[in-house]
């Protein structure tokens, strides 16, 4: 199980070294921003202009181009945060701790967007802003978990201890992720069942599906951009006394 080829191990060790990560993310950034802008423009054009209106909801359904990718990201980022936290706990890799805590505010924002846009859509379609059904409630708990992670990290001064505490909280909260995903199947909920991730063919017309997937990729690339920016700042803060930061700043001053 732990027989990982040497080259892979070396790759991860190199990736996990802060100066290397700092330089690499700087080089990747313009490419990522380009990809993000292109995907977002294509996704929005496809979703808001090219895609036809829905047979039941008319144009109101177009909120899925924000709501669904944001909800997917809220789960995805939580998993990244928890796994990075676990790696930080087990292997004591500083970069993993930084990635975990940098993900939290981004995940919290996506969760908030998913809840907010869902509420806007719910009022005209269901007839209510909010109901306490299993899907909506578990997604709200996810938002509180993110806020708890951010709060806990801020409350502890020693950032090494803070990272450990946050990782444990994030790992305990992982149990909520399958609950959110399967809530619409396990219990009667007002929220509809899954459309795209159903095991048989998705019950969404292909002209509506393609912009949705483009938007999902666009949100993913936005997450990468935001994560890199946040983690770079967090790294600089933590490593402010180390040699590579001093050298870098001295060189920038010249």
């Amino acid at each position: 199980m732990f027989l990982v080829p040497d080259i892979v191990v070396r790759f991860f060790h190199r990736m996990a070294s802060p100066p290397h990560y700092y330089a690499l993310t700087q080089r990747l950034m313009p490419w990522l921003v380009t990809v993000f802008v292109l995907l977002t423009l294509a996704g929005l054009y496809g979703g808001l202009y090219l895609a036809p209106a829905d047979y039941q909801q008319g144009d109101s359904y177009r909120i899925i181009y924000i709501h669904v990718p944001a909800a997917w990201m809220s789960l995805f980022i939580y998993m990244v945060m928890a796994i990075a936290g676990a790696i930080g706990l087990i292997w004591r890799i500083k970069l993993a701790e930084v990635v975990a805590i940098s993900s939290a505010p981004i995940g919290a924002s996506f969760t908030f967007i998913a809840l907010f846009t869902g509420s806007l859509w719910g009022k005209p379609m269901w007839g209510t802003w909010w109901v306490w059904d299993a899907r909506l409630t578990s997604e709200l708990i996810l938002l509180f978990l993110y806020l708890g992670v951010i709060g806990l990290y801020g409350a502890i001064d020693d950032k090494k201890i803070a990272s450990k505490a946050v990782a444990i909280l994030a790992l305990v909260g992982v149990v909520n992720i399958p609950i959110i995903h399967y809530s619409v199947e396990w219990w009667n909920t007002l929220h509809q069942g899954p459309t795209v991730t159903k095991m048989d063919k998705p019950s969404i017309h292909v002209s509506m599906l393609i912009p949705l997937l483009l938007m999902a990729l666009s949100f993913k690339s936005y997450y990468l951009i935001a994560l890199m920016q946040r983690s770079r700042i967090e790294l600089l803060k933590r490593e402010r006394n180390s040699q590579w930061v001093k050298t870098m700043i001295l060189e920038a001053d010249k």
Partner: protein
Amino acid sequence: MKPARKQRLILISLMVIGVAIATGFALKSFNENLMYFFSTTDVVAGKAPKDSLFRLGGMVIKGSVERPGDGMMVRFKLTDFSKEVTVEYTGILPDLFREGQGIVAHGKLNAQGVFIAEEVLAKHDENYMPPEVKASLKTKSLSEKGQ
């Protein structure tokens, strides 16, 4: 892998598994409370509360919607494709309320077994398609029925 790391890995895995099992039991015991609504079969079988408010979900049977008075009162039948319950509601229905669509009503049963709703919410299904596709699906299923 170094022993210390292995130990931490095992500890963390045990913690996650433990939390998952605990949550599993908790959810199992609260299963009934987590149901947002009762199905029409539950109501006919007498599982729903008799004197208190509860939610009832089901599909509006095609052709069952009628307005007996000249007021805002609507009467329709809900089904889960096995049992039916009659619902009466006075008020404005949501946009997505249609015959053949799922809804969730909040209210209570009267002595005759009719569900008097105070609030009606539309439950959207997970299908998205353009109107033309829907129309062609309809004609297709009609022609299949005709054969």
